[in-house]
């Protein structure tokens, strides 16, 4: 049987979408790049002996619920692990590669639950081994029980830093400090939002308590100025700033560490959505270029729904709710099934809470442009193609005023990561120089991820299979 519903991404949104769609009798194919379900947030241990990183019991409970949901449907769906969706065409048509084969799907409905990747502001020395994304540090702990350093410094913006800091403490690393661009207390500017997200706040306090008990200092309104080291990271220089991003003179301090876990928020993995021509709006605090959706996750592209943080960062709990909504919508609208309203109502209520809570969280994610001004001109902004800050500024001054033009001129964003690491920094530079009202992302074209020619040549059509 031809798959009616194809879902890209097996995190909370993708799995819950699959669960709902299967519940109403749709035939579902679920695709993920990892060998196991869970996505980044509920990453499973690879060998069952991961060090303890479960500080918040609620988080573990949510993971168990997701695993149980998947267990219930696992024999009724096609799950393609270690598979990458690399191209999308209107129809919808989706090209997927797995283990040096590739498949073409033409489902009735495609649900994109591709999630987010991490964003960090570049700084001098950020290419040194030992400088890692905070979520990546967390992933290594969750999946392999590996702690990426012995003396760690956590820096950046947003609530992830405190979770990673507490987990590093739990994994027996010496955490030197947590340096935050905006204090978490900035969230109190939105008291109603805090009330809506009180469960999340409570979990946040569990992490803070753990940090406090271990004597880890939190440095508010401090930013990373430079990472030092010859072959590997040895130390990091931080500097104090005031609210609008201005540096406080003579406050620089250097902290010894062999790991810098850094995160300045998340970016929506919207490449596949953009290949369908779905409109995106640039909103840095909400996850970069966000595809425009209706309340059910529906888009302007025929047969394409979007679920989870790919459609704007609201977190794992909201992602599961948005997955349920998209799964039920797929069953009702595209497969003609009658759906039960009670689950939908609960999911919408959950989503609403997190939308409200996000208004508070985004207060911690604001990145003043002054942070970018600390860079040495020769620092690589695009790490894949080795494009320096100086080169980018020269390109903008020469009259390249769109991301596409800068990309053609400098190769920034053309490398293997597909611009997922650097394009938001390019957008920030462009915005500062040109004061644009709307920044278009670069045009998304196949292939979305590097694939081998061999796997494309080794292609089969999934119509008539299952």
């Amino acid at each position, binding site marked *: 049987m031809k798959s009616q519903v194809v879902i890209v991404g097996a995190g909370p949104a993708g799995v819950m979408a699959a669960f709902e769609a299967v519940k109403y009798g749709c035939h579902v194919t679920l695709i993920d790049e990892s060998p196991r379900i869970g996505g980044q947030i509920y990453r499973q241990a690879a060998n069952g002996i991961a060090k303890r990183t479960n500080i918040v019991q609620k988080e573990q409970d949510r993971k168990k619920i997701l695993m149980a949901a998947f267990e219930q449907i696992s024999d009724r769906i096609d799950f393609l692990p270690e598979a990458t969706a690399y191209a999308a065409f209107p129809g919808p048509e989706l090209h997927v590669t797995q283990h040096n084969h590739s498949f073409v799907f033409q489902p009735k409905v495609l649900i994109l639950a591709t999630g987010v990747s991490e964003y960090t502001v570049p700084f001098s020395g950020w290419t040194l*081994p030992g400088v890692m994304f905070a979520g990546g540090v967390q992933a290594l702990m969750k999946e392999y029980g590996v702690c990426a350093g012995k003396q760690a410094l956590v820096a950046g913006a947003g609530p992830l830093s405190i979770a990673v800091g507490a987990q590093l403490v739990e994994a027996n690393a010496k955490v030197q400090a947590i340096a935050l661009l905006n204090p978490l207390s900035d969230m109190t500017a939105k008291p109603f939002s805090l009330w809506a997200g009180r469960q999340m706040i409570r979990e946040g306090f569990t992490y803070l308590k753990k940090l406090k008990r271990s004597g880890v200092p939190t440095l508010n309104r401090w930013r990373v100025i430079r990472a030092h080291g010859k072959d590997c990271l040895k130390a990091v220089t931080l500097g104090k700033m005031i609210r609008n991003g201005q540096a406080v003179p003579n406050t620089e301090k250097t902290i010894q560490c062999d790991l810098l876990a850094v995160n300045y928020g998340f970016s929506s993995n919207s490449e596949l959505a953009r290949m369908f021509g779905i409109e995106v709006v640039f909103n840095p605090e909400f996850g970069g270029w966000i595809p425009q959706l209706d309340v059910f996750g529906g888009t302007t592209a025929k047969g394409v729904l979007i679920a989870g943080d790919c459609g704007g960062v609201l977190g794992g709990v909201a992602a599961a709710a948005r997955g349920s909504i998209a799964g039920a919508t797929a069953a009702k609208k595209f497969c003609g099934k009658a759906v039960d309203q009670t689950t939908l109502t609960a999911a919408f209520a959950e989503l609403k809470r997190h939308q409200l809570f996000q208004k508070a969280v985004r207060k911690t994610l604001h990145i003043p442009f002054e942070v970018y001004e600390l860079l040495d001109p020769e620092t690589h902004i695009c790490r894949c193609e080795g494009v320096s800050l100086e080169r980018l500024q020269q390109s903008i001054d020469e009259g390249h005023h769109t991301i596409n033009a800068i990309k053609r001129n400098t190769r920034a964003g053309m490398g293997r990561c597909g611009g997922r690491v650097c394009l938001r920094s390019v957008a920030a530079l462009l915005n500062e120089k040109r004061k644009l009202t709307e920044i278009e992302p670069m045009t998304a074209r196949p292939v979305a991820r590097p694939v081998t020619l061999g796997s494309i040549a080794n292609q089969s059509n999934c119509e008539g299979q*299952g």
Partner: protein
Amino acid sequence: MKQRNSQVNERTGCFAQSSTNTVTFFFEGKLIKAKSGDSVAAALLEAGELILRIDPSGSPRGVVCGIGVCWECRCIINDVPNTRACQTEVRPDMKVLRQREDL
């Protein structure tokens, strides 16, 4: 497709967690011990090997995103260049080399 699927599910099934065995492999000719199921990146970080690649300008690079996004940890695994250490599971006697892009 179905058959392959079920094989993969058996190997990496949702709740199936294999017992830990030690696997040994080689990094730059050096013997490295890892837990079975580890990624090359995880095993090398645990062993204190941080430099996986030298970029065209000669500067060292290591693991950054840990989840397969950034491709910074690409190295040569069993003679295949541009292989992501963070997305490759350690196999016995695997040969991993630092990727030199400056030569």
